[in-house]
Each structure stands twice: as structure tokens, then as C-alpha cells.
């Protein structure tokens, strides 16, 4: 039994089967990411003033990743064109370049961007304690500027004070480390008999000098954590968390959407690697079929690229 139009196009539709299939699949993917982006809009519009953070992501790194991904979209087209011209070696080179780009993108995401977020720490202050922390929040200044209030103090954990079974104890950074890792801090707090007394947060520039006009808008380059330290008592904390998915609706959206996007990139890299290593046999038997396969995987890759084109502005820039 032979399924017709596996390689050549059906005359009246002008498509071979897999090409139609991938376009239909991409339509469903549009709805999948459409649902996620709509949720982002819904939550952002519904967020109370001050609850939607700005400028927490590293824009230069995001720009670099955007360029890498767009570059890989070009190389995958060149790989396909090489196959169409029956130039296997050129194909191999361009395909390898595509895979490298995809891998670089993932590496930046997983070894730099995400871990950096997991080390950063934020404390939402209770409403009635605002005056106490005004030097770090600068809400008077923001009110004058008619800007949304600042509710959170961010930075690195310089020190955490706890009581263990009633006895005071300080958690300090490990040797050779500059700050307490938030996940370790969470671990300590979940132990039995442990109660939080205060966090001593090494402040971000924005909290170190909150009335500085320069801090009203996010910056292109991320600024280093300052030397200034703020002590925040347990009683004044509404919620405290590293920049984990549970930190806020913003990071929930960020990690879910970039995570799902990352999975798509990973799937693309896997498929391309398969084509690179095991494509020769099919190429020798039926080069057109091989070219078709690269074409539909390429269409998927362009879509993944396109999703990033939306992710980058809405999370990094807006």
C-alpha cells in the first residue's frame, strides 16, 4: 500500500502531505501560544498597581539570543536550498550552523539567564510597613512623578537571621560566595522549629537610591547589586521569594512561556541533529524527500523563532 503525495505535490492543492500537516500543526501551535500570551495580557491588565515588575531581565543577553535565533532561521533556509541544489556538503555545514545556534540559545538560557534569576531575591513589603522602608521604596518620589508605587525590595541575600527552637542564629554566605542562595535559605526555613527573624538584603541599585530619577525607567544594561544593605523584619514581609516562578504572576508567565519555547527549540535541535547524522541514506535514495523533510522542520523552526520575536519585547522590553 502506498499513501499518495508523500513526496510530490497533489496538483489541485499544490502541497505534499507533510507540508499541509506542518501548517495545520503550526495553526494549533499559534492557538497554544496565543492562549499563553492572552493570559499574560489578562494578568498584566488585572494586576494591582506596582505588582507588575519592569526591567528585571537582562536586555543585552536577550538581544544576543534574538540575533542567534534569527541567524539560525537564515541558516536553516540555506541548508534547505543546498539540498534543493543537491549539495550535500553545503547542507551539512548550514545544518550544523543551525544546530549550533539552537544550542547556544539554550545554553545561554539555561546556564546564564535562568540561574541568575534564581539567585536574585525579592521581598514584598506589607502595606502598613511602607513608611518604615520608604528609604528603599521611594514611593513619595514616585507619587510626585505620578508613577506606580514600588512594593518590593530586591537584591541578594546578604544574611538571614533565624531562631532555631528559640535560639538566635545567622545564616551567612558560604565560603567564596558573595550571597546566601535563596533556595538554601528556603531550605533552612522549611526545617522544623526554624522561624525567620529578618533578611539582610544587599540592594539593587533601584532600591539603594529609589528617589533617583534615573531609576524611574528600566535600563538597557543591567546594573550590579550595590554595597548598601537593608534589614527587613519578618513581621513586615508580605511575601519573599527568589525570582522563581512562584515569585509573581510576571515570573509565572516568564518561566512558563520561555520554558515552553525552550522545549520547542530543544525539539527542533533534536530533529535537526537526526537529519544531520542519519539523513544521508534517504538523501541518496530520494533527495527530494530529504529536502522536504528539512523544509517542514524549517517551517517549524521559523515558527519557534517567531514566538521568540513576541517573547522578547513583551518580557524584556515592555
Amino acid at each position, binding site marked *: 500500500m*502506498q*499513501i*499518495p503525495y508523500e513526496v510530490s505535490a497533489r496538483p489541485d492543492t499544490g502541497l505534499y502531505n507533510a507540508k*499541509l500537516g506542518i501548517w*495545520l500543526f503550526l495553526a494549533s501551535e499559534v492557538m497554544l501560544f496565543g492562549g499563553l500570551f492572552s493570559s499574560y495580557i489578562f494578568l498584566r491588565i488585572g494586576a494591582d498597581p506596582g*505588582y507588575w515588575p519592569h526591567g528585571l531581565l537582562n536586555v543585552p543577553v536577550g538581544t544576543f539570543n534574538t540575533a542567534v535565533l534569527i541567524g539560525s532561521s537564515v541558516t536553516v533556509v540555506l541548508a534547505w536550498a543546498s539540498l534543493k541544489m543537491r549539495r550535500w556538503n553545503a547542507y551539512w555545514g548550514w545544518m550544523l550552523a543551525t544546530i549550533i545556534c539552537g544550542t547556544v540559545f539554550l545554553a545561554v538560557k539555561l546556564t546564564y539567564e535562568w540561574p541568575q534569576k534564581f539567585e536574585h531575591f525579592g521581598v514584598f513589603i506589607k502595606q502598613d510597613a511602607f513608611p518604615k522602608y520608604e528609604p528603599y521604596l521611594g514611593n513619595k518620589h514616585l507619587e510626585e512623578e505620578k508613577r506606580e508605587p514600588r512594593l518590593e525590595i530586591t537584591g541578594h541575600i546578604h544574611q538571614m537571621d533565624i531562631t532555631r527552637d528559640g535560639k538566635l542564629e545567622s545564616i551567612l554566605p558560604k565560603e567564596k560566595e558573595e550571597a546566601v542562595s535563596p533556595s538554601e535559605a528556603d531550605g533552612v526555613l522549611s526545617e522544623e522549629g526554624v522561624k525567620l527573624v529578618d533578611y539582610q538584603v544587599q540592594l539593587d541599585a533601584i532600591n539603594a537610591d529609589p528617589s533617583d530619577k534615573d531609576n524611574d525607567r528600566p535600563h538597557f544594561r543591567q546594573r550590579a547589586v550595590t554595597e548598601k544593605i537593608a534589614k527587613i523584619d519578618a513581621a513586615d514581609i508580605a511575601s519573599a521569594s527568589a525570582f*522563581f516562578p512562584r515569585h509573581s*504572576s510576571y515570573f509565572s508567565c516568564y518561566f*512558563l512561556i520561555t520554558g515552553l519555547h525552550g522545549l520547542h527549540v530543544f525539539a527542533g535541535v533534536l530533529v535537526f541533529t537526526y537529519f544531520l547524522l542519519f539523513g544521508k541514506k534517504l538523501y541518496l535514495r530520494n533527495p*527530494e524527500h530529504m529536502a522536504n523533510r528539512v523544509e517542514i522542520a524549517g517551517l517549524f523552526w521559523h515558527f519557534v523563532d517567531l514566538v521568540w520575536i513576541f517573547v522578547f519585547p513583551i518580557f524584556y522590553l515592555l
Partner: protein
Amino acid sequence: MSITADTHTHETPGHGHEHHEEHHELGFWQKYVFSTDHKVIGIQYGITGLVFLFFGFLLMLVMRWQLANPGVPVPFVGPFFQTALKMFGSTIFASDANGNPGVLTPDGYNTFGAMHGTIMVFFGIVPIAFAAFGNFVVPLQIGAPDMTFPRINMASYWSFFISCVIMVASFFVPGGAAKSGWTSYPPLSGIADLSHSVFLNGQTLWVLGMVFNITASLLGSVNFLATIIQLRAPGMTWMRLPFFVWAQFITAFLLLLAFPVLEAAGFMQFTDRVFGTNFFMPTGLVVKQQLVQHWSGGGSPILWQHLFWFLAHPEVYVLILPGIGMVAEVVANNTRKPLYGYKAMVMAILVLAFLSFIVWAHHMYMTGMGAKVAAFFQTTTIIISVPSVILLTALMLSLWGASIRFTTPMLFATAFMPMFGIGGLTGIPLAFNAVDLYLHDTYYVIAHFHYVVAPGTIFAIFAGLYYWFPKATGRMMNGFLGHLHFWGSLIFINGVFFPMFLQGMHGVHRRWYDGGKTYEQLAGPLIHWNGFMSTAAFLLGAVQLIFIFNFVWSIFKGQKVGRNPWDATTLEWQAPSPPPHGNFDRPIAVYRGPYEYSVPGAPTDFTPQSQPTAATQAAAPTPEEPPHH
């Protein structure tokens, strides 16, 4: 995968593989279990779906016992499962005050309610009406050798199978299966069962099962669309497609575009539960006088409702359109007339599908929305009744002046029309915001959508089962038992659902655990119907045993039939019964429309689509396989 030696050929590796198959009989596993044949996959979907349909029905029987006899131990079943499920820490059944075991607990009632809905919709009706019938019938009706992507088709079934395993397994984890309703509204679903384990608990497994289920639907719908667009036989133009194929085509589009949104919502609920994100959990949520957690920024429970109903309203049409398609086939065949208004029906389902994407918020009037938004959604909801009425009217007019053959499938198809009519017409009051605020979450709503889906779609499914059974097995189902099954089902299903309209209009709420006993001053005058409905439900169950017997018996002992036992025109009846791998034993081409019954001057009262017309007989497109190079 074997490789053909000829490097010049443009055949695919798949071809080499299939070529291989023709010479060597496949082993049992590849032929019946891990099969890529659309007919086997269709039957797998069908059997799995029927089993789940019955399972979902049994859950409801236990609930109906509790409604009619609140607090009375469920006979046999209750004590048995209370003992059997003890080691899993199940709280579904418990002993009553006197120590008699087997009372359905409130938790158990909620679990059964949630799982009844989930199973009936996502594991019963959709797998049968769409996946099973679509897989088996569509390629045959368009004259294709198989689906476009046979291996993806197999992946679809096995993804579905994994989702089934997860759903069944969720009954056996601590705390039991999901209990937040089939709609899984947060914040209830966001905090349910988390005390047992973050991962192995009913609600998380529900979300996980749904993700696999949705993936299966997506793989299936891409396949259906590609098959119908690419693999139509020569001469099978769009307006020569049998109406059933059109219905499946539109249904596949609905699944393709609506389901991913629920998948996105599923991911969000999953991360909410497992990683503590806050998409759906509002700020300052208090449970049992305790502030659950400060959710900074604040998620929105209403977001879930929007995402859920954005799927779940098109889902209603996913449930009903394949049913209408099956009924149309059966009606045309048994009235021996062309379908009335075939083109109008096709246009109607296109409009229906489009509109179904912009009516979802009529499920959310009670949630609270601005008057303008409510006005928009009630307008679109009223407009969507127009194409529905066109469909039903066309089917009824098809009966006009026909000498109807009341075969078993035709009985079910005929009964479908008034039943679906009742379901549809009682929906119109619900479309209006003001009326809905009163009727929301009452038994009136239950009766309304069950009339659409139970005596509606399920009757259509029975019509389809009796109609295509001879194609799948080469044997007829017994007619006498079929009639018995039909009349019993028709009477008892109305006995179950009609009194619900009365109770609902009186304000009886759909989620009351004791059938309204606590609110006697409100439900009192109508509470006696509970016993009536429950008795009807049990009798309905008993009647289904006739069907199960008939089904199994006929597979082995039914009367043998040839290719075309119903004297039908569409292409599937040109293939042998059951069709072999690759479907048609002779090249097939199409020369005429799908319903050429009783054509004046024709030698028989049916003219198959594959029969050349006088004009084409001389210079016909050669009925060969479509050209491919």
C-alpha cells in the same frame, strides 16, 4: 524499514515498508495492537471509548442511587469497593451511623461527579464519535488507502491510551480522583488534594491526563484534515463529499484550534499546583479561616474560566457535529432519497464552527461581566441557533414523502431529531443573561445539555454503530435485539432527563449531594422525582446490557453480509467487508454526488458514487490511483 534498490525511484521509505508488508503477514502485535491501519485504530478508539462510556455511566448510577436514597448504603457495590479500595486510602465510600458499609461520601460524590463529566466528554463521546468513526469511516468514504500519516495516527491512539491509564490510576492515589467538577474551576482546583502529595494526587493527575488526551486529539485532527484535503479519490470534489466527511472535517478544525488553548490552561494549572506559580490563585485567598499564601500580583480564577470555555464551547460542537453527520448518512440511506439541502447543511456547519469560537462566555454570566459583554455573547449565542436549526430542519425535511425503512440505525437516527431538538430549544432561554442567572447551575442546565449529548449524540453513535457494524465485521447486528435496545433506551432516557427540567425550573441545584433533602422547603414538591429518575437510570443501564450482548454476539454469530448490505451509495460500501489493509481491492474513482438514491430511470434505487455516468463512461478519467511522481 527496508530500502528499495532503485535509487531513481521517487517512492518513499514508507513505500518500501508497506511493500514489505504485502508479502509477509504481520505479527499479532503489529496487526491488532501497534497497528498503523486506520480501521484497526478506529476500532481501538471505539472499544476504549465504549468501555469508558459505560464506566462513566456506572459512576452516575451510584450517584443517582445516592440522590434517590440519601445516606443509604449503595447495595453490593458500596460495601465491595469500600473494602477493596481501603488499602488505597480511598474516601469514596464510608459506613453510615449504624456501621453499615457502602455509603457514598460527599467527597466520593464530588469525585464521581467530576469524573463522570470528564470521562463522558473526553474519554467517551469524543473518542467514539470523532476518533473511532472518523478513523474508520472517513478514509473509506473519500476513497483513500489510509490516513495521510499512519504512524502519527498510531501515536494519537497511544497518547490517548496513556491519558486513559492516568485517569483510571487517579482513583487509586491518596485522596482519590479529581473532585473539582469536570470544569476544574480554581481556586478549588488549585488547592484540592495538595495535602497528600504535590504530584501524585487526583487533580494533578487530572491535568496531566488531559494534556495527553489533548495531544492525542491534536495529532488526530491534523491527520483528519490532511487526509480529507489530500487523499480524496479522483473525482471526489468537495461538494461530492458525504455529509459525514464534512462534519468530521469541521470537527477536526474545531479540535485543532480550540484544544490547544485548554492545553495552555492545563500547563498553567499544572505549574500552579506543582511549582507554585500563580496564574489562577487570587491574592489573599482564605481557606478554612487561613490565608493560604500571599500571591503577589494575584492570579485570576476567571482567567481559567475564559480559557476553559474557549475550548469547551467549541467542544459542544465537537460532540454534536459527528453525530449529525452519522444521522445524515443513515437518514439518506433509509429514506432512499437525497439529503434535503445538502449544500445548505454544509454552509450551516461552516457558520456554526466559526460562531462557536465567539460564544464561550455565555457559560460565565453568573461569574459576573459587564452588561455590554453579556449582550455581545447573548447575541452571538442566539445567532448560533440559526445554523443549528437549518441542520435539524434539513434532516426532518429529508423524511418528507419518503418510504422510510425503519432499520435499527434509522430508529436511532429518527429519534435523534426530536431529542436533539429538545436539547437545542431548551438552550435558547439559557442564552439570555437574565434567564440564565436564575437557571444557572440548576438541573435545568443538566437536562438541557444531556438532551443534546445523551439522547442526541449517543443515539447518533448507536445509529452509526448499527449502520457501520457490517462494514467493520462483515456481519449484521441482530435486528430484534436492536429494536428492543432502541425502545428501552428511548423511554428510559426520557425518564431520566425530562423530570430534570421540572426540578431545575423549580431551582434544584445541580451539586446537591442529597438530592435536595436539606433544602426541602424549596425542593420539596419535586423531590419525589429523584426516585423516578434513578429507577429510569437503572433500567436504562439494564437495556444497555442487551446492546452489549448483541454487539459481542454479532461479532461471532451475526448474519454474514456482503459489501453493501444497506444498498448505500457512498464509497465505503464498495470495499469488501471488512476492508483489507489498503481498503479497496479495485481502483476507485468518483463520478457523482453522495446521495443518488431513487434516481429516475436508474436500474436500482441507489447509484453508487463510483458508478460512471453515461457521459463519462466513454471518456472517463481512468479510475486509477492518483498520479504521483
